[in-house]
């Protein structure tokens, strides 16, 4: 997949545009923001449907409670802020007021992960997948590109119940065509191979594809899977990868504790045991820098992923040899 010519659109931009589009046909959609509507792109909806947009100010806990109250009145509510504040400051309200009563609230959080960049560790939310995944009744989606983000927003609007969508600030290549099939609970096989399976989400899907290209030059056939639905997760796709590749490497711009890697590991451990090597942020906070610098620092750019994959493939080959000896 040559992405050098692909248009670059941030998933937050696709979110804002698709939400404003949905607003035309779905009069039940109400949108909330916490004084970040320019950055989260809910401003497009606010401009088109001012009567159905409420700015809650810098008060995220209240915003999630308001979202719950609107949902009890039959509204489909989209509530946005940065991932740090939407899931960190308001976690208890999401638990108590949204997930406990199973209300139709969609938390669409932007500026997730390391690729926030220069704002640094206070804003680089690396724990949100964990915080949302652990909640009963919550669906967790991490789209890989603009097309998938728009599809995830439409799927969330159709789904009856709480949904978390993790979105990015950075502009990234558009990977998928308009007719890209998207469904909650489904992943996508993007590149076949049987030496190793890379399972990635969000901005790391592009990096994983590029890493697979680098590894192909070394003679390795690496499978790449896009896993936008973290909860529920595509167990069959994971197990097929485990059985056909013999080892899995997960890639996410998130703490390895509780994120995509652990979600994959839970399935593999229970159903199809093979080694699962988890790439992500290892028990540390971020720092200021460009997205490119930060991904490289954490070994989460294509070169870093390829380096880790080579090391894993070498170890696995040595283990195999020992096993045969």
């Amino acid at each position, binding site marked *: 997949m040559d992405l050098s010519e692909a248009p670059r659109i941030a998933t937050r931009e696709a979110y804002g545009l698709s939400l404003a589009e949905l607003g035309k046909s779905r009069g039940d959609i*109400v949108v909330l923001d916490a004084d970040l509507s320019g950055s989260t792109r809910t401003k497009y909806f606010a401009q088109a449907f001012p*009567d159905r947009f409420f700015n*809650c100010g810098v008060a995220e806990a*209240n915003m999630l409670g308001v979202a719950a*109250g609107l949902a*009890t*009145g039959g509204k489909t509510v989209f509530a946005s802020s940065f991932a740090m504040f939407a899931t960190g400051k308001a976690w208890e309200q999401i638990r108590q*007021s949204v997930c406990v*009563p199973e209300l139709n609230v969609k938390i669409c959080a932007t500026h997730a992960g390391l690729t926030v960049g220069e704002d640094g560790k206070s804003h680089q939310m690396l724990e949100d997948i964990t915080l949302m995944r652990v909640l009963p009744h919550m669906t967790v989606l991490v789209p890989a590109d603009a097309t998938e983000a728009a599809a995830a927003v439409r799927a969330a609007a159709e789904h009856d119940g709480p949904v978390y969508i993790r979105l990015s600030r950075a502009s990234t290549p558009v990977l998928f065509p308009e007719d890209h099939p998207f469904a909650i609970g489904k992943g996508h096989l993007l590149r076949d191979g049987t030496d190793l399976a890379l399972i990635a989400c969000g901005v790391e899907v592009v990096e994983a594809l590029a890493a697979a290209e680098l590894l192909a030059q070394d003679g390795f056939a690496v499978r790449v899977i896009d896993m936008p639905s973290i909860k529920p997760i595509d167990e069959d796709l994971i197990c097929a990868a485990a059985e056909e590749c013999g080892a899995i490497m997960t890639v996410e711009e998130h703490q390895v504790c509780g994120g995509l890697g652990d979600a994959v590991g839970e399935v593999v451990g229970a159903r199809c045991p093979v080694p699962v090597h988890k790439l992500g942020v290892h028990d540390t906070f971020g720092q200021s820098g460009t997205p490119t610098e930060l991904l490289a620092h954490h070994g989460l750019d294509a070169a870093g992923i390829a380096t880790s994959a080579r090391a894993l493939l070498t170890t696995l080959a040595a283990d195999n040899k020992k096993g045969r000896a």
Partner: protein
Amino acid sequence: MVLSKELKLEVERTARGVREDIIRMVNAAGCGHPGGPLGMADFMATLFVAHLNLKPENRDAPDRDRFILGNGHTCAGYYSLLAQRGLFPREELLEFRKFGSRLQGHPHRSAELGIDMSTGSLGTGLSVGVGMALAARLDGHGSRIYVASSDGESQEGQIWEAATAAAHYGLANLTVLVDFNNVQIDGHMRDVMDVRDLREKYTAFGWHAMDVDGHDVEAIHQALCDAKTESERPSALICHTVIGKGVSFMEDQPGWHGVAPDNEQAAAALAELGTG
């Protein structure tokens, strides 16, 4: 509007029933929170009998009034009111807090029971009330949203986020009833964390706020009528009450916030309430 003699008698009868039910329920459960709801019984009965239009026939109506018990731990009294209004059989009250019961230790949203929101974690209710009030306004419903809260709950920052938002959006269809009994779990409020004058605070936040004797059903009724005449501001009734009201050995005693009476104490309490 004056509370009619018949309605006043019904409010008083209902409040008496609430107090008896609380003692029986918490005694049967062996745990729970009797003090708070005993103090709230008079204003809650006034609300449920004379104002809130929730009954079995309209429980599914989207345009009926809504109620949220922000201080969810006081739900023994709330459940009694729902049962007395016919939402479910009164016998079921003795299942309170037991395994498999619909009457959970803190309220859980239930269309069947007429429970409009899950609560229990202090501070969350008023925000949900703001959302309900916005939804009612968007749909053009003339319904009202009532939230019960408390002085202790007012220590939560989220209450003031919600108070700011309610005034900003001009939610005249929202009314909060704050149980001000000066007591919280760890002691009297002045010894733990004094929230001071809540009428002044709500007023400063842009609300129509009133101090009311929380045991004077006519005054409560009048204040709830006043709230309905507001066209731009949300209303706050600061209901001054005595925790444990009606049971002499529980009155103004922080120790009865969250402790169940044993059989002997329950019998003594019911005797004082006139039904022992």
